């Protein structure tokens, strides 16, 4: 059933998108949410489910790809995404019927709303990650064998490129190189596919989930009550309530072209005294409790301020901060053998197998 989104929904979506990616600076999400709410005064954006499209309708993902530059350092002109959609339509000789977000968190969770407002295309309540991953090849569509290319990119300079590559990892390399040349970020449109393919291989309910999370977190209730609601909605579990004891930058070597530096945060559990160690790079990749794996990618780990129940941004953590470390499972596709090959700790330079991987 299609829904016309309201400015309140956008506010909730902003909070939900931050909750699912607490390791990333939320400034850009806030800037975009403000712009979308402003634009909604004169235009509307429609959220639809993938089933509402004809099976052969062409759908594309929209998302920002960044390479070490904050978007606010070089603001977009505004026509980047529509330019990319035109390029894909020209390349494929077909009209795009709907768009979907490249990721279900952070800035890419909210960008489709802006693009929907600009293009009047409906936004599908699905995505190919069910969370956010740093690499564009780390998608359930890749697991399902859906082609990533052709990929259209456009930067603030107005320059535009279409990348043709069969292999998702090779496409990743080419896109990263182009993004650097385009100034550090680029608007992209990729994974052009049929609605049937998206229905089959995507993760569904992504946008509405973020809105629900925002509703819970912005409610005037206690932190514990928010946790219980999240637990009911998403199956969130609390790994620990800990006090930060140590923050370490550049805590691991990295050579995989991942767009961020590794760091670590150590906490001490408030009641048990357990030592909680979080390994971070773009996101919280690994949580060790007294050295034992308590969560590892593709599990999602996020932090809540234990006093107010608000999202605790990783950049704002200081020694002495007390936070709840929460864990939620990713989409089931990520725990398949192919899913773990793409997104378990080893894919992020941590030579560990995910506990759910079947050995032998």
């Amino acid at each position, binding site marked *: 059933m299609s829904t016309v989104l309201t400015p309140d929904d956008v506010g909730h979506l902003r909070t939900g998108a931050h909750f699912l990616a607490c390791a990333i600076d939320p400034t850009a999400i806030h800037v975009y949410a403000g712009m979308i709410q402003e634009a909604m005064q004169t235009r509307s954006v429609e959220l639809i489910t993938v089933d509402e499209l004809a099976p052969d309708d062409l759908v594309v993902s929209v998302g920002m790809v960044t390479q070490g530059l904050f978007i606010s350092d070089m603001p977009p002109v505004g026509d980047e995404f529509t330019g990319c959609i035109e390029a894909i339509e020209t390349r494929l000789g077909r009209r795009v019927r709907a768009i979907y977000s490249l990721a279900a968190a952070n800035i890419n969770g909210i960008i489709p709303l802006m693009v929907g407002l600009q293009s009047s295309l409906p936004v599908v309540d699905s995505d190919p990650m069910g969370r956010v991953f740093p690499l564009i090849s780390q998608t359930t569509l890749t697991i399902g064998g859906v082609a990533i290319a052709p990929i259209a990119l456009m930067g603030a300079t107005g320059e535009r490129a279409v990348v043709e590559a069969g292999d998702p990892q090779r496409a990743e390399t080419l896109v990263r190189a182009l993004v650097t040349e385009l100034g550090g970020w680029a608007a992209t449109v990729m994974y052009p596919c049929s609605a049937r393919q998206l229905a089959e291989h995507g993760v569904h309910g992504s946008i509405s989930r973020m809105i629900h999370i925002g509703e819970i977190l912005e409610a005037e209730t206690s932190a514990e009550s928010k946790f219980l609601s999240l637990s009911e909605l998403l199956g969130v579990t609390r790994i620990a309530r800990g006090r930060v*004891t*140590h923050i*370490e930058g550049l*805590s*691991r*070597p990295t050579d995989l072209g991942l767009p961020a530096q590794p760091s*670590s945060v*150590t906490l001490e559990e408030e009641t048990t*005294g*357990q*030592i909680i*160690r979080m*390994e971070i790079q773009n996101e919280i990749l*690994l949580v*060790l409790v*007294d*050295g*034992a*794996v308590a969560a590892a990618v593709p599990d999602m780990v996020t932090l809540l301020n234990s006093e107010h129940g608000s999202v605790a941004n990783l950049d704002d953590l200081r020694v002495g901060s007390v936070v709840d470390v929460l864990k939620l499972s990713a989409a089931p596709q990520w725990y398949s053998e192919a899913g773990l090959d793409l997104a378990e700790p080893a894919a992020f330079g*941590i*030579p*560990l*197998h995910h506990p759910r991987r079947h050995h032998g």
Partner: protein
Amino acid sequence: MGRTMKDTRLDVAGLLAHGSLRGTTPLYLTPSSALVESVVLVSHLEAIQRVRPNTVVVLSAEMGSGGWLVSAALRHAWERRASAVVVAGSTYSSAVIGLAERLGITLLAAEGNPAGVALALAAEIGAALSVMDAELARFARAVAKDSALPDVLRTISRELDGVSVSLEHDGVVLASTGTAPRDPAKVITVDVGAADATVPSALTVRLPASSVLNLPLVRSILEVAAPSVKAAWLLGNSRDTVRAVPTAALARLSQGLGSSGKDFEEDHRHLLTQLGWRRDERYAAVWICHSGLRTPVNDLTAVLRLLWRKVSPRSPLAEVEDGWLALVPAAHQAIAAQLELRLKTRLQPSLAELGLVAGLSRWAEEAPPLPSIIQEARLAAVSARPAGQGTVLGFTGLGVTAATTFIDRDAVALVAELSLPRLMASPDREAIVAAVAAFLDHRGSVSLAAAALDVHRNTLQARLGRARELGVPLDDPSQLLSVHLLLDVLRAAAPGKQVSKGPYETRKDSHEFPV
């Protein structure tokens, strides 16, 4: 005996002070020094999940030195009860060292390549093991010199600082030495196997909680000693077999003779003298047999002979048909009484475990013929069967009642069914059976029988009259013995058995006290 083997053990503190860990920097040291038995150089974390306890885990340089890696390695090492974790030298956060402290595992940083530490430690452990092997060889030579089982056990115990060492069969201690600790913290057993028994026997050591012995080493010592234990046991058993030949021969010769001992001794005088039996010597016979009718398959002779040493080590136990027999010299009654006491205190629990019973002959002033005492012991043993396994019964307390043991109770009950059908069909059968049986028990005295049953004599008279009506031939003396036997069996089989006082007990309020 030379120095004990515990000296060869390596521990973290010793290796740090003057061994191959000397070149490492302790990031955290546990308060008590852990034992070191092996070393593993790992290149991936999963390998730590397979290390044995008391292993030093060395993380190879290729694994890196990240805090998370050391944290995860500490955790795995802790789960496997490793002795210490050695990592490449680097700057480690207080959180990592804090985790080592929290888990209680020593964390060391290697100055150079950690592989060098692993190699040096491996060489040192190898050298210690070779010393251990030399010590084991010395012990093997020492224990091989002992030919008697108690000596073998004593040698093992001495090597292990006097701890309790025992040879056990299916939970029964056959032989032991040393002091058993009140709180055995660790029990180590090594299978000895037995000559021809299906249930294996085990050499067992019980270590006190305070013991500082190295457990794998204790096991090695037991394994080295096991062949000597088995050999000594077999040797002892074969010597006993030889010594028991006169007993076995006597049992064989007297088989089927009943109690006609005098003629037997006359007939076989020469042979008995040759076997070493003396006519004027008095003996007590002990017969051991299975408590059930069916004989278990495993042969217990070797096991029983070890147990028998606790009772009478000088008199050999012979394996005879349907059991085991020993003839123990008993010149005085006190010796026979002491033998019975020993049987009950030292052997009875083991007999119960093994499903056996034992019978003992009487002691008499006049030296009874040997076949008689053998038969007495056998009858006592067979009579002990209904009382359950482990029962030790003397013929003295049995006498003629032994005869009842040999009654086929099922057949007698069948005779009752056929010959006394009206009694058997009567609803008040139980009361009548009890009344008549008590009457016969008391030699036909109505008063004594009534007192024994705690009923009035008129009641008893009425029940005896009823018995006659139902066809019990109470008035024919020639049938009385059979009637008594039948009723005794029926009384024993009755579900609500009436408690009857013995023939020499009466009610206190009775006027008819026997004098």
